[in-house]
Structures are given as structure tokens and as C-alpha cells.
């Protein structure tokens, strides 16, 4: 079965979505990712969507659901690399991605994850 790879790096999980996902593939990613968070006890999830040419309401909901589920599983999620045209379209579509943290690129996304996780430990 077709799958989006999930890479583990220390306490982080990294996902780069490189293909135009159909809905079932998006659901599989959501299931796989929550499973991996539990298995690896990951503290942070970084999802790179820089290759995505569109984010419609289904993918938007998947991103919001992943962020919500990982939060419940004690992990932070950051979505990085959204293209400007995608961001403009997303807002016009009516999606605000409430609850999803975003960063411009992978580097800033990793910084944000580290900060969030450090912040939590010191609480």
C-alpha cells in the first residue's frame, strides 16, 4: 500500500509530503503518525508541505486533526513550508487552521519545536 514515510530523528518525527495526496492516503498518514508518536514517544512532529500545490478542506482538516491528536499524546506539531499561493487560497476557502502551528521553513520549524518542548519541561 502507498504510504508517506515518517522519519524519526531523536525525539522528533519528520514528515515531508511529496505527492498529491488522495483522501485515503491522507487518512493513512494520520493513523500512521499517531501510532508512531506513541511507539517512539516523540515530543515533536514536523510536517513539511512545501511540495503541496494545494491544501483543500480535507487536507486542512487532516493537519488540524494531527495537531490536535499529537497534543493529546503529549507532542507538539509544526507545519512548515506552505506556499504563498496555498496560504492565500486557504484563507479564501475559509480555513484558518486553528490550533496548527506553522513556520516558514524546516529550520524555523525545528527552532519552534525545540522552544516549545523546552518551555514545557521548565513548566
Amino acid at each position: 500500500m502507498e504510504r508517506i514515510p515518517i522519519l524519526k530523528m531523536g525525539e522528533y518525527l519528520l514528515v515531508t509530503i511529496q505527492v498529491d495526496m488522495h483522501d485515503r492516503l491522507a487518512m493513512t498518514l494520520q493513523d500512521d503518525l499517531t501510532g508512531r508518536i506513541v511507539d517512539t514517544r516523540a515530543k515533536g512532529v514536523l510536517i513539511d508541505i512545501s511540495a503541496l500545490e494545494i491544501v483543500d478542506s480535507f487536507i486542512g482538516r487532516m493537519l488540524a486533526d494531527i495537531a490536535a491528536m499529537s497534543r493529546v499524546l503529549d507532542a507538539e506539531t509544526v507545519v512548515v513550508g506552505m506556499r504563498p499561493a496555498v496560504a492565500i487560497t486557504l484563507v479564501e476557502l475559509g480555513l484558518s487552521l486553528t490550533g496548527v502551528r506553522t513556520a516558514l521553513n524546516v529550520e524555523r520549524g525545528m527552532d519552534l519545536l525545540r522552544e516549545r518542548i523546552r518551555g514545557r519541561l521548565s513548566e
Partner: protein
Amino acid sequence: MTVLLTDQRTIQTAEEVVTIRQAVRQRAVELGFNLVDQTKIVTAASELARNAVQYGGGGRVTIDAVEAFGRRGIRLTFEDDGPGIPDVELAMKDGYTTGGGLGLGLSGARRLSNDFTIESTPGKGTRVTITRWR
């Protein structure tokens, strides 16, 4: 309105929703749409194609390159023979859904298009036509 090119495709599966997105993108590129306008019409197409699969039990889309008053555009007509929508006005509201989604498909597709029409007959099916001009 003059139709310059027409292309009809079936929409039965989630995979076909992806191929329709690609076909719409290609037509938008050929017509010289800028990147933001391409993204808008492709996103609207994705919402409506998914609706046809999810609520209409599958259907078809006609992708037309059109011209009117010296402007070119893309017109997409989504048709299904599903159960139809009993209350179209309600279905057009942001956040209204009967399928567990976000309820942004129809209303979002309307915002992403320049022209939008919907006709639905309970028991017969639904037809949604959108046009985006260059």
C-alpha cells in the same frame, strides 16, 4: 460564451479526484492563469470533485476553456446522479455538513470562483458549475 476546448472525465474514486486536480491545473496553465488563480480554481475543483464522490456516489466533470468579452477562463461543471440536496441554501452555509467534514466545500468553492451556480433535484442529482476568469 464560446467554448474553446472541452474535456469530460468521470469521478468515481479518491484517486480520480487527484487526476481531476491535475487536469484542471494543466488547463489553467495553458490559459495563462497566474499561480494564485491556478491554485484557487484547482482547490475549488478538489472540493467539488470530492463532493461528487462522497455525496453523489460518483459523477463526472466537464472542464471547458471558455472565452467571453475578450476574456478567457475555465468553466467546470460537476454532475452526479446522487440523492440531491434537499435544502441548497442550507448546504451553502459555511460549516454545514452532513458528512462529518468541515462544511466548507460548497461555500469555499463559491468564494474561490467568479461565477457559481448550483442546481439540485432530490432523487435525481446535483449539478454545480463554476467559472474562473483570467
